[in-house]
Each structure stands twice: as structure tokens, then as C-alpha cells.
């Protein structure tokens, strides 16, 4: 029992479910999970956080993963992003199987091919906004693509604040810096974990619009974990998780449509 999304047809045509066979054979998927199981604890304390999830993340799309607390959505994202290991199954980013990589290679993969936006504490407090943006590249020891970095900075509208420390920025500004950092190194895929969870609705809308436009205009692939139907409605496709399983998906979501499905999940 599997759901997935792929970019059949033009990018603007929306998303349609893909078959399990397509997911297993990769194709144009930016990332995929095949039969991923994640178990925490043993014996009575045993929890199946993920229970045989197979999912394809299409390139150049904005995918939202939704679900109630404890549904396994964050765990899924962590596994896809190489932050967590799986108990069984396989995870690929592009054609690289993460589940076969050691810590060193995983770290390098995160650094070179993945961007992150977390709910809070996204920035290193001692570094300026600009230094935070170029940090992944500085860590890698590569020279940033200045033109691209400039484009990203202008898109998030942070030019006047580049020399400020995180403590001198508002929460929304901080998240925009985090988004800029995630995009600046041109990662294959950006993972955002509740990026608007700590923001008021206006700042949240700014961040989400920016994420969406980076997909539409720059062809970025983004996976966002959220429990906010409004946030999810910015995505091209919403994947619903419950009890560690994918239970539904919704292309071209609207806030009301997402809310409707969520109610169904909550029973």
C-alpha cells in the first residue's frame, strides 16, 4: 500500500500519484524511500515510527508531509535527509543509497546535496547573516557562486541585514536567512521541518511564499514537514502520514481541503 508523487507532464500541471514500480526504479525522483521501517525501543517500549513507507519525492516540486503528532512525519524527513538511520528499507537521494553510507559520507552528502530549514535555532549565533548563508560552502571549503548567492539574498530581501547577527534579527528574518542558507549551495533537495512553526502568520506567509517561488522559479525541490494546513496549502502535493504509514495524498491542496483530510485522519 503505497503512495507517491512524480512530475509527469509539465511542472505546472500539478502532481499525480506514481506507481510503486516507478519509485523502485528511480527515474527522475529527487529522493525516495523504499519500504522504510523505523523502530524505536524494544519489548513493551517498542514503537514503530515508520512502518514500511515507500515514497518518491519528485524533482522540482514542493512536497508537504502532514500528519498528527506521532505520525512519524519528522522521522520520515530525518531518514530521507540522512539525519537518522532506518531499521529496514532503503533511502535514496538521487541515485545514492543513504542507507549504505557511513557517517562521514552521510555528512558530506548533507553538506553537498541537501539544504535544511529547522523550526527554530537555525542559525549560528556568532556568525553574521551572510556568514550563516554561506556556511555550508565554507564548511565544504568551496567558493560560493556569488551571482547565485546574490540572487537568493535579493529574493529573500535580506540585503540590508547581511552584517547583522541572528540576535539582531526578527524571527521571520532569521527563518529567511535559514532559507537563504538552505538554497545558497544549490542543493538537490531542501528539507524544511516546521519552518513556520515559531512565526506569526505574516512572517510565516513570507517564508512559505519564498519557498514556493524558489520551486516555481528556480526549479528547487523542497520537502516540508508541517502540521499547519495553511502552510501545507503552499505545496504542490501533500502526503498524509498516520501511525508510520502513508495514508493519503492530495495534489494541488487548499487549506480547507487539507483540513478536511486531517479531520478524517484524526477521526
Amino acid at each position, binding site marked *: 500500500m503505497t503512495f507517491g508523487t512524480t512530475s509527469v507532464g509539465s511542472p505546472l500541471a500539478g502532481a499525480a500519484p506514481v506507481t510503486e514500480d516507478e519509485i523502485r526504479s528511480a527515474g527522475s525522483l529527487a529522493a525516495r524511500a523504499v519500504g522504510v521501517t523505523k523502530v524505536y525501543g524494544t519489548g513493551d517500549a517498542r514503537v514503530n515510527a515508520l512502518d514500511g513507507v515507500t515514497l518518491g519525492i519528485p524533482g522540482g516540486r514542493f512536497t508537504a508531509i502532514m500528519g498528527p503528532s506521532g505520525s512519524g512525519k519528522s522521522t520520515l524527513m530525518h531518514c530521507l535527509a540522512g*539525519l537518522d538511520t532506518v531499521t529496514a528499507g532503503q533511502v535514496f537521494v538521487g541515485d545514492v543509497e543513504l542507507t549504505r553510507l557511513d557517517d562521514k559520507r552521510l555528512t558530506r552528502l548533507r553538506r553537498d546535496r541537501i539544504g535544511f530549514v529547522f523550526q527554530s535555532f537555525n542559525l549560528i549565533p*556568532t556568525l553574521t547573516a551572510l556568514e550563516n548563508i554561506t556556511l555550508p560552502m*565554507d564548511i565544504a571549503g568551496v567558493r560560493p557562486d556569488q551571482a547565485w548567492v546574490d540572487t537568493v539574498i535579493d529574493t529573500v530581501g535580506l540585503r540590508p541585514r547581511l552584517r547583522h547577527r541572528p540576535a539582531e534579527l526578527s524571527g521571520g528574518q532569521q527563518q529567511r536567512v535559514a532559507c537563504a542558507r538552505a538554497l545558497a549551495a544549490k542543493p538537490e533537495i531542501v528539507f524544511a521541518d516546521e519552518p513556520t512553526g515559531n512565526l506569526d502568520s505574516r512572517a510565516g506567509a513570507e517564508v512559505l511564499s519564498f519557498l514556493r517561488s524558489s520551486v516555481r522559479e528556480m526549479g528547487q525541490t523542497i520537502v516540508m514537514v508541517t502540521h499547519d494546513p495553511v502552510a501545507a496549502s503552499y505545496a504542490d502535493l501533500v502526503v498524509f502520514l498516520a501511525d508510520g504509514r502513508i495514508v493519503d495524498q492530495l495534489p494541488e491542496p487548499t487549506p480547507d481541503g487539507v483540513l478536511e483530510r486531517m479531520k478524517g485522519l484524526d477521526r
Partner: protein
Amino acid sequence: MIARLTLRNLQAHKLRLALTGIAVILGTAFVAGTLIFTSTTNKAFDELFNEGTQTVDVTVRAEQAFTGADGGMTVEPIPAAVLDEVRRVDGVAEARGDVMGFAGIVGRDGKIAGGNGPPQFGIAWPATLSDYGLVNGRAPAGPGEVAIDSVTAGKTGYTTGDRITIVTKGPAEPYQVVGVFKVGESGRTGGVTYAAFDPATAQRLLVGPGAYSGIVAKAAAGVTPAELAQRVTAAVPKGYEAVTSKQAADEASGDVKELLGFLGTFLLTFGVISIFVGSFIIFNTFSMLVAQRTRELALLRAVGASRRQVTRSIMGEALGVGLLGSIAGLLAGAGLAVGLRGLFSAVGADLPTTALVIEPSTIAWTLAVGVTVTLFAAYFPARRAARIAPVAALQDGLAAPARSLRVRAVAGGLLALTGGAVLAAGLSGAGEALALVGAGALLVFLAVAMLSPLFARPVTRALGTPLVRLAGATGNLGSRNAQRNPRRTSATAAALMIGMALIAAVSVLASSMTASIDKALDTALGADFQVSSGGGFGPVQSFDPSVAAGLARVPGVESATATTYAQVKLGGEMVFATVGDPARLAGPFRMEMSSGGAAAGTDEILVGAKTAADKGWTVGSRIAAQYADGATATVRVAGVYKDNPMAGSYLLGESTFAAHYPGGQISSVLLVKEPGADAATVRKALDGYLAAYPNLTLQDQSDMKEQARSGVSQLLAMISALLVLSILIAILGIVNTLALSVIERTREIGLLRAIGMGRRQLRRVIRYESVLISVFGSLLGVLVGVGFGWAAQRALSGDGIDVLAVPAGQLAAYVAAAALVGVLAAVWPARRAARMDVLRAIATQ
């Protein structure tokens, strides 16, 4: 309730508190170790001295106002007639002449056994009234026969039947070991070596034919030692006195104890330094614990805990750490005391031993010092904790508002001025000079520690610039972390600063001493060679003037001038005077007279120009003086010579010395070779002559410089070794700070790892921070230390240290070593950081 919270906290922060505890342990261990070491050694000396005199009641000796430069080794011989008079005194049951003097047993390595430690005695057999017992062989019975003590026998490997060489004040002579004896009940000698000869031989070798170095008597039944001493003193000729054996033993052990007291104070100073450094670590740890627990403490306040309860909770933790640390420190101190003893015997100073003595006062002092310092250091953070507003519990983030540094700047500035003034007063020799210097230095250290947050940020930024250049992102992050919290960085660096400052100060002083000695030898030493007895740690051993005459006959030698030193009480002040014939010394010492003649007759003295000016003396001035034998005289200044570092401030003529100082022994012979004579050839000839005197060393000018230099560097090494402990504590402080910072920055570390920072890079970030803190601390230390060294050199310029030499290379090496210290300190915290689970780190609140 608060007590339970304190206990819980002690448990919860085991690791951090353990690190703090180690700082307490190291500090108190040194204090405890020193106290245990001195009380143990004191007791051992008591046992030793009492053992030697248990069997006699009264000792007769030549009256002496003070002991000479050789520590009382040479005494005025007592004629045999005095023994007869003592025997006739009513109440004397038995009396015997004692013969004792220098006799060095030449070991298999050609050196005098025990040469660097306590004295080497030659005695007549049987020595006193029978507290020396033969272990094997027989008593020495004629010339060429000797018995040696069992400890020396064990050390040298000599035993009955061996042929050995013994040096007395004359040339070395061969002897046959005919017996081995035990000293006292225990056989312990405390490092003294004994060679026993038959009485006639002993007298000939050590004192003079028919003479004794002392007379011991046993009281008849019903006569107390004190009574007997009185009776004997009344009976013997003027110039001799009788004292009870107990008094003699007390006087002897008193001298040793005074020396031990100095040693104890010296060692204790380093204990105080360690504790002082440790207090910075304790302060810093508690500050960080409080900062990290801001929310928890605010919650306590929000639910109704009073300020006092919060303070008490923190102080309770400090009490626990202080108490446990001090107890562990006491135990470690016992181990350290054993180690110190080993250290002394390793450098050749064998001290007598007995079971470890742990006085109740030692326990009390150690606990009091450890607990007080911990409580004091924790008090300020505890007070800060109490000031946390309850609302902080509701606020996100731990960022405490940055407190102004202005108060600190003013207080630190005032403290620095006070410290500087106290230090200056101490160095200028006012009142309790040493105590003032110490207090001044402590104040300056505190002031620098208080002020350093003001410039920690710019300095670490500047130091970090090359790191950012070379190491990119990791360098940048490390450098930023070091700048992040100037107070924390400073407190951590301050601990290192103290040790570094002291080492740097001692280094500056040491190289100034060496440079000054070099200069003195260059300008004032006209002699080509010098012959003197070994030196080392023991008292200066004097030797017979006949050696000078012998050396003068060696081919190629133009002149051989004997000299020695003597203590004289001049105008109420004890001074050391060089003894010799001024006319003969003019060449070897390059002496030039500025007024008066280069001759000193009986009760005449020559004075250096500066001293003469200071005292207002001119040729013909008359000064009240007392000599070693107690005789007083009015001494006339016969001449004033240009300041001469070799001759020193005073020069006493030979005739005065012969009249008032026992033995007439000399301590060095200065040799000038004939012009045109080949130095190597002359040296060879001199070596040949001196083969018979294994206790004497021949040195040319460069050897003398080398000896002075090695003496200074030995002292430097010893002090540095003792200061290494404070460096060790400082390293612990850096480890502590980094470990706590890592815990504090868990989320940040998680983020860095998530966005692709490798473990190795993360370790590097922490290592860079550590290196920056260490280098900052060591730079501060070197600066302060050079200041101290300069001040000390200025203060001592009148005492012969008239050249300031700053060993730049050495100081740079210290800073480089500090960088290495930083690398070491970072190992463990960096490993902990790198091992953190990425997800859990991000999720940390």
C-alpha cells in the same frame, strides 16, 4: 527541600563538579603534601639528633658567636689538657674526647659519596660513649684502617676488606675497610656519611695531633646534666663552654629545622599559587553552571523559593565539592609528601625518614583552605543566581543581558594600582618584603583577571585572524566562539595567565642573573683557573691552605691565591666578607683601589666603593665588629676599592681570619698562569696535581660561567617544575570551560553537523577555541611576568643583578607551549562534541 535539591544537583552535574573537584584536589594536595612532608622530616630529624646524644649528658665545645660559611664543619680544636680538666670535675662519671671533621669517602665513580647532601664526617672510634655498634669486621686500629657506616657501605658497595680512598682536608689517602658499623639504634644516618679511624689517626687527619673537636661527658648518679654543664663550664679555660647534650642536639636540629622551615614556606608558596589558580576554575565552573541553569533557578524563584534559598542551594553544592575535594586532596597530599622525599633524594639530598606524620593541624588546614576557597569562589556566582528574576523562567533562550563592564574597569584599575604599589613597596624592601611582594602579585593577578574581559574580544579576534585566513569556516567559528563570552574566556585564560606570569618572571630574572654573572666574570675575573670544592647543595667544604702552596709549584702557574669567606658582624649587621691578601687578590680579581692601600692588617678591612659611600665610611673609619669566635674589636677601614663583583663588598685580611676563625681552611684557590704558558698544558698539570683531591674541582673561566649558568638554570627548572602544577590546574580549567560550553552549545553543534560539518571539522572548531584561549592567557601571563621580572631585577640591581635580560626566544617558546596546552585541553571536550547524536542535539531544548 533545598538540601535535597542541592544533593540532586550534585548528582546531576557529577561530571562538571568532578572537574571542579579536581581543581580543589590539586590545590589542597600541594598544601597538605607540603605540611605532611615538613612535619615528617622534622620528626625524623628530631629522632636522628636525639639518638646521637642519648648516651651523654654534657658536651664541651669552643665558644662560637656564629657558625662560619661552612655550616659549622670546622671548629676550633680543643687541647687534650681540657679533657683532663673535665675529667677532674666533680660529678663527671666519664669523659671522652670527640674527634669529628670532614672525611669524604671516594665512591667507585670517583666522586665523594653523598657529596651533594648532608655533611661527610670523619670520626674517632669509638666515637661517643658507645652508640655506634660494629655490624661486621673490627674496630680501626692504626693508620690506614677505617670503618664505615652501614648506610654508606650499602650505597657505595664497599665492605670489610675493600681498599678505598678517603679525602680529608689534606690529600686523598688509601685505606683498608676493616669494619662496618651501625649508627645508633636504627642505623639511620640521614644522609650523613661516616668514616671512623683510630683516635690518633682521626686526630691527625681531622683536628690536629692531640686535639679534640669536642668533649662529651656522662654525669655521675645524682647529678643532673644542667648542673654538670654548669660545673664543667666553670672548670674549663676561657673560650670553652659546656652545654647539656639536649641543648646541643636542639641547637643542631634547630639549624636544620630553620632550613626546613624555609623549604616548607617555599613549597607552601606553590601550594598557595595552586589554590589561587584553582579558585578561578571553581569560580568559572559555578558561573557557568548558574548561567546554564538560569531557567531552572528562575522557576524555583517563580514557585516561591527565596533568594536566600537559591543562594544556599548553590553554596551547598560548593560546600559538597569543597569538602570532598579537600578530603581527596589530603590523601593525595600524603602521596605527594612521599614523592617530595623521593625528589629530594633524587637530587642527592637524602633526608632522614620516618613514618608519615599527619598532624591534626594539617588536616584542619587542608580542609579549611579547600572549603573556604571553594565557598569564596562560588559565592559570587551564587549571589548572581539569587538575582535571577522569576520571569526568566518564561523567557525563551538563555541570553542574559550583557552586564556593563564599567564597574569592572574601575574596580580592576584600582586593584591594579593597589597591587602595583604593594609590589613596589615589597621590592624596595619595606617591612615584610616577601609577604608584600606576594600580596602585591596576587592583587595584580586579580586586577588583570578582572580587566582582561575588556580586551579579551579584540585580542582573541586579532589572534584568530590567521586561523580564519588559514582554516576558513572552522577557524572562523573557533575564533568567534572564543570571542563570544569575554568574561568566560578571561576567567579561563586568567588561570593560565598566573602560572605563565610566574614562569616568565622567573625566566626573566634567571636570564638577568646569568647575564649579570657573565658580565661580572668578564669584567672582574683575572684568574685563569679556580680550584674549589664541589659545591652543589651542601655547605661549602673548605680545604687546607697547603693545597694553594702545592698548586703554586705546578709548572706554568704564576700565582696561586687562596681565598675564603667569613661572616663578620659589622656595625651590628651580619655580612659576608671575602678573606685574602688584598695585594695578591688584585690580579685574579682585577681589583683597583680608589683610596687607601691594598693591604689589610689585623682588625683592618677593605670596603667596596658603593658600600663605603652608602655607609659613609672612608679610609680610617672605625667600626665595631664581632668575629665568629665571639671576640669583638674595632675594625679600621684600611682602603676602599672600586666595586668588584668577585670581591664583593668587604675584604678581610688573612691575619684577622687566622686569629678569629677556627681551622684556617680556605674555600678556593685562584690561579694565574704564566704569560705565554699554554692553557691546556697548564690545565693538564693542574689536573695531575689535583688527582689526590677528588673533592676539589678545577675550573677555567668558561667552566665558571657554565657552573653559574647551570646553577641558575637548575633553580629555574626547579621553580618551573613546581609551577607546572598550576599550569596543570589551568589546563583543567580550559577543559572544564570547553566541556561546559559544548553542553551549552548542543543545539548549535547539532545544526552544524546537520548542515554538513564533519566530526573532524567540529573537533577542529573546539580545538581552535581552546588554542585561542590558551594563547590569550599565556600572552597576558608573559606580559605580566616580564613586568614582574623587570621590577624584581630593578629591585635587585644593587645585589649584583645589574643587567636586565629578557629571554625573548624562551618566552616565545612558552607561548607556543601554551598553544599545545590548548590542543591537549580540547581533546576530550572536542571528542564529546563530535560524538553527539545529531538529531538529539538539534532537539535539545
